[in-house]
């Protein structure tokens, strides 16, 4: 018979730091922390010594000084007498602008290409595969450069001049030039507020109508048509209001004047090039996500729905899409994130996003490299953390219930 000992008295020994599961993790973490702090401390001390040797210091004072340079495309008022801070804000807004536009077009392209790749039409399917593979397997920087070159060989505004111009405006309103795209700008005259208000109400009205139609179906089994009434509700009142108020909204059509087109809205070449490049590139990736998402919904779902008598359109909207979207949306959101991060390549086409202002000219002019790069990273970090927060929230919301 083994005489086993009593539980050892709880006296703490140094060796327990390594041998005892209770303490050992603290030991490791402590070591890790010390190593980390030592490493960071070492780097920081180098930094300070280097800065001292070079007689520099870290300060964000430069943000308050006048920037002194001009920016071609701004969403807020900006002149070269504004501060570097304001120039950075312009950059931030420009980043967000191109990211926003890019995400929308990339999604449209991606959905088309993704669905097209699954098309029964052999030619379309092959064409879409070529598009997707070509764009996925070549660096985005090269695409940006190529597309920017393509934009450059569009007609110059000069080509629109003269008796027999080489190029003409589309519908007499939109000009595609190698300086950018000029589109008409709405001019808000007196009374235009009413028209806008009516339009907003129509939008609300349209959704209300659709909700009502659905409710009616649920309550009485009567299915009202949804398609054309929606369009009618959307446009007819606004058009009526427009004429009743005496055409208060005019448009300012871009005209050739001096060196450039004047008037209208001017989407500058760098924006156009970057926007196109990013959306076509990201579109290829989104196409893959869309395709995978649709393929993930088994054929059985379609067949089950069909055998219940549902028509293809309804099968898509009631059965396939709600499921496919759960699969598609998370990877697509991370593609949005990638697009936003890739927009920092704006620098290659001269688009003044945050990397172009704060990380470009401001950094150049002030020489405040550390400060600028830190701010730059902080900004992108905030964006990606917010996007991943959104994604997690979405994932949690749509998670399928399982056993």
């Amino acid at each position, binding site marked *: 018979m083994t005489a086993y000992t009593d539980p050892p008295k709880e006296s703490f020994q140094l060796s327990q730091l390594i041998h005892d599961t209770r303490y050992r993790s603290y030991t490791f973490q402590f070591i890790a922390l010390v190593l980390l702090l030592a490493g960071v401390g070492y780097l920081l001390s180098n930094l300070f010594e280097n800065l001292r040797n070079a007689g520099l210091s870290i300060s964000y004072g430069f943000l308050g000084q006048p920037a002194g340079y001009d920016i071609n495309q701004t969403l807020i008022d900006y002149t070269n007498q504004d501060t570097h801070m304001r120039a950075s804000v312009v950059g931030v807004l420009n980043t967000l602008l191109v990211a926003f536009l890019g995400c929308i077009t990339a999604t449209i392209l991606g959905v088309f290409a993704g669905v097209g790749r699954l098309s029964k039409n052999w030619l379309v399917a092959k064409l879409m595969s070529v598009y997707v593979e070509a764009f996925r397997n070549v660096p985005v920087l090269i695409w940006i450069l190529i597309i920017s070159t393509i934009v450059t060989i569009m007609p110059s505004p000069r080509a629109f001049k003269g008796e027999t111009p080489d190029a003409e405006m589309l519908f007499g309103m939109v000009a595609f030039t190698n300086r950018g795209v000029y589109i008409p700008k709405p001019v808000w005259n007196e009374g235009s507020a009413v028209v806008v208000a009516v339009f907003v109400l129509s939008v609300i009205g349209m959704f209300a109508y659709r909700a009502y139609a659905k409710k009616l179906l*649920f309550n009485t089994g009567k299915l009202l048509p949804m398609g054309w009434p929606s369009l009618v509700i959307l446009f007819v009142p606004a058009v009526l209001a427009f004429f009743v108020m005496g055409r208060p909204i005019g448009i300012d059509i871009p005209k050739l004047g001096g060196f450039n087109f004047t008037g209208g809205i001017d989407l500058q070449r760098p924006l156009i090039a970057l926007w196109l490049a990013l959306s076509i590139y990201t579109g290829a990736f989104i196409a893959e996500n869309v395709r995978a998402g649709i393929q993930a919904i088994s054929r059985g779902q379609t067949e*089950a729905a069909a*055998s219940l*008598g549902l028509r293809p359109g309804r099968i898509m909207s*009631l059965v396939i899409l709600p*499921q496919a979207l759960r699969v598609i949306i998370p990877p697509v959101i991370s593609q949005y994130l990638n697009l936003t991060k890739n927009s920092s390549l704006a620098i290659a086409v001269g688009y003044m996003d945050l990397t172009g202002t704060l990380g470009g000219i401001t950094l150049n002019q002030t020489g405040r490299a550390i400060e600028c790069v830190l701010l730059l990273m902080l900004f992108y970090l905030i964006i990606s953390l917010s996007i991943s927060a959104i994604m997690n929230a979405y994932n949690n919301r749509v998670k*399928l*219930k399982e056993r």
Partner: protein
Amino acid sequence: MVDTTQMTVSDEVAISIEKMNKWYGQFHVLRDIDLTVYRGERIVIAGPSGSGKSTLIRCINALEEHQAGKIVVDGVHLTSDLKNIDAIRSEVGMCFQHFNLFPHLTILENCTLAPIWVRKIPKRQAEETAMHFLEKVKIPDQAHKYPGQLSGGQQQRVAIARSLCMKPRIMLFDEPTSALDPEMIKEVLDTMVELAEEGMTMLCVTHEMGFARQVANRVIFMDQGQIVEQNEPEEFFNNPQSERTKLFLSQILGH
């Protein structure tokens, strides 16, 4: 034992198939199928894997297109005309091997979706019907769960209820129990027996020979895309005529 006396077979023709042929590419899956199903019949289709059983019943509700021959379901001629297809599909319910419930909808929503959108029945009423059928398959308490939260047997019963909610006059089953664990098979078969007792016209691809003996009034044996033999269950099992049938039965019953 099921009370088969209640299960009457009328003279009315429910499904009539004449010289139906189907190809997948070069492959001739169904060859000159002739089959008449009378209202109230309970037909079990058996046969080796790949013999075209699934294809046959999928042709009946136009999930697959046939290339030659004639299919008439409930008096409606099955052509590529969408209206006819719709008419037939709303008369014919179908249950699949893998249930194919809609995972993003609750059990109740699964059952009311088609009645509301296809039959245009008010939601309230559709839900009442759905609950009725869910009670019938003995899972009314699961109505607000999602398919993923149910066991396989429960899911298959929901699938049956979902079909029934469309009030079909004919039900097709494609191996409804072959993806289930043994305990669950019984639950599902019980439900099907009940359906049969109520006089539903049923075509059922299955290898459950117990079920066939108990419920079917006709067993069809298929091989290589053809109907090789058909007969009443007793005769079919005890006295198979063709060599192939004998071979097949010896394999199946050997287990």
